[in-house]
């Protein structure tokens, strides 16, 4: 049975670098997310402490996790585009 993508894909030489970058960013985000879960579970009173602009840690940490997801996504996309351009074009020339 034939497998493979529904649309034909061009060869991509930048897979290894993109995967490595993705893994790094994933582990960074995982560590920050784990920090949230650990504080909420084992040091719950800390979540009520005022940290920034009158907001408590729970609100600041939660909002940061959401905003950070987008920021890290954009960083990932920026470098992936760069790798794809560099490595695939270099190879073509």
């Amino acid at each position: 049975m034939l497998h493979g993508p529904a649309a034909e894909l061009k060869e991509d030489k930048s897979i290894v670098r993109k995967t490595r970058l993705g893994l790094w960013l994933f582990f960074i985000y995982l560590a920050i997310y784990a920090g949230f879960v650990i504080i909420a579970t084992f040091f719950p009173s800390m979540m009520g402490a005022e940290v920034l602009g009158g907001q408590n840690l729970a609100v600041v940490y939660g909002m940061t996790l959401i905003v950070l997801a987008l920021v890290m996504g954009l960083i990932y996309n920026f470098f992936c585009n760069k790798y794809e351009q560099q490595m695939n074009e270099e190879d073509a020339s």
Partner: protein
Amino acid sequence: MIYEVSTLAIVIFLFFVVTVIGLSLYFGNKTKSASSYYAAGGKIHWAVNGIAFAGDYLSAASFLGICGMIAFYGYDGFVYSIGFLAGWMVALFIVAEPMKRMGKYTFADALDSKFNSRAIKLTAAISTLVVSVFYLIPQMVGAGAIMLPLLGFPHWVGVTLVGAIVIIIVATAGMTSTTYVQFIKGGLLIIFSTVIAFYIFQNGLNLKPTKDYHDFITLNAQVAEGNITAVEDDSYTIESQHNFENVVLVKLSKDGIPTWWKLNIKDDKASLEEALAITITADGAHLYNGEVQAAGRFYQVGHFNKIIIDGKEVESTGPVGAMEFLKLVEDSEIVRFSKKIIFDKNEKITVFYQNITLGKDIMKPGLYYKLDKGATAWSKIDFISLMLALFLGTAALPHILIRYYTVPDQRSARRSTILAIAAIGFFYVLTLFIGTGAMVGGGLDVESSNMSAPLLAKTFGIVLFSIVSALAFATILGTVSGLIVASAGAVAHDLMDNYFKIEMSDHAKVKAGKITSVVVGIIAIILGIIFKDQNVSFLVGLAFAIAASANLPAIIMILFWKKTTAKGISWAIVVGMVSSLGLILLSPTMYEIYGLPAKSAPIPLQNPGIITIPLGFLVLYLVSLFTYVKRSKTDKDTVSVIAE
């Protein structure tokens, strides 16, 4: 009366339905090949796909469930928002591009791309069906639940109507029409959630949330040795008193209508605080605050006890900024409604009494999950387990993964994921404001937490309420369509075509998909009627746990471990699926559903992920290790992306 059938809501709903069906029929004429049916021909623009992701992912559990949970329990509901969004990081950084590279129509294709194993095809297809069906049930139950109060139809009509519309969407043009329905729904959901948030900030904080908000009465009372003996207003008759560990409830009656009150004793002075009550009489009739529902004695609630700005109490604040809103809620005192069930003279009475809660306790975790006061080791493990399943579940949901096959290339897959994160993240930030806004703005129906977002919209006017109600249906339509496409792909493509190797032309494959869609749609309708009384968000959480346990170990290991074998993958899927299902069936919540005491459940865990996800990885590792050694000389197909 909380719910009145709104003509405008019905008109908007019908307009949406006609548009969606028209769109489906239009695309249906163009959908001839299997590729266009299952993967929209791989031609969807990344921006459309990104918003469609949001439309696919933001299900009834997000819009109705999370907003409602925040409205009832504060920050603990927001934890779902955080976990559901964090899951997209796994999807973006690890799963998106390889899925696009390796698959064709379904996630089973991707897992099987290097092996051509019948075991993988079978197990991945079954797991797709199990996860999708678990995800379908709460959507259909949600459809029925909101149909009754909003449009006045009974539960089964709501379920059947949603089922029928979705069958038309999916059976005509498959993934193409599904994508556009999800795109429209995702866009509208974000726009109108923003509008609701704007109203919240514009109205500011008010002790009386709306003009016609109910004035809660407090009566002075006399007490002797803890028992109530007299009430200041002698038109009331004392009927009975019910003492609980943390609250004393009193039944009075006036003009023959029973009412329920909470007894407060402070500095030797006793008073009675008005409560809400739903009574189920011996003959099965439901009474709302002592009368039939049509009498209109039940009302929306949710208000401040005190609004405090810089240490001073105020009646209202005027317009506020977003972060200022959260800060003011944190500094103030809110009246929540706690529930007690009383059996009295062959009647079952659910009393919702006022429970003054400090804003600082509402704006941090702990009101729903036992993490601080009264926490046990199991309650903490349960919380970690939930957060783990939310984080790892997203990237393992088949109906989300199939979206990667609708775009032309990896770059589009990546870009659409980032747009999805932006849209979904923005929506999840809004859930905190909408939920808290409903909690303090009279947006609660104490009977159903799922209705908080539409009821908050109702306090801002009937037009917004009608739009938001119609949107709630659209939310369900979009997600159910995606789930049915995923199920149809699993049956027609993975099972019929690939596993049983039934010879089919391209045209026949499309036909098989359409027939499957109709069958799965009918099954969804039946399940939606059977599971009528189940809790919506509980079931969605379970779908995440099953997806994370059954699918994620296979997806991750095939990408990053060279020695992964076909047997390892299929065994991991089977063990992950069976163990997570098994633990769910033995959980305290399920024991309550069986009518057994929750404490008698063998494992006091509601969320199985913390045991079953590592188990899935372990099984894959051990089975692969065993089968790889035996086959290593001939099997050159086990690969990893890194090795490429």
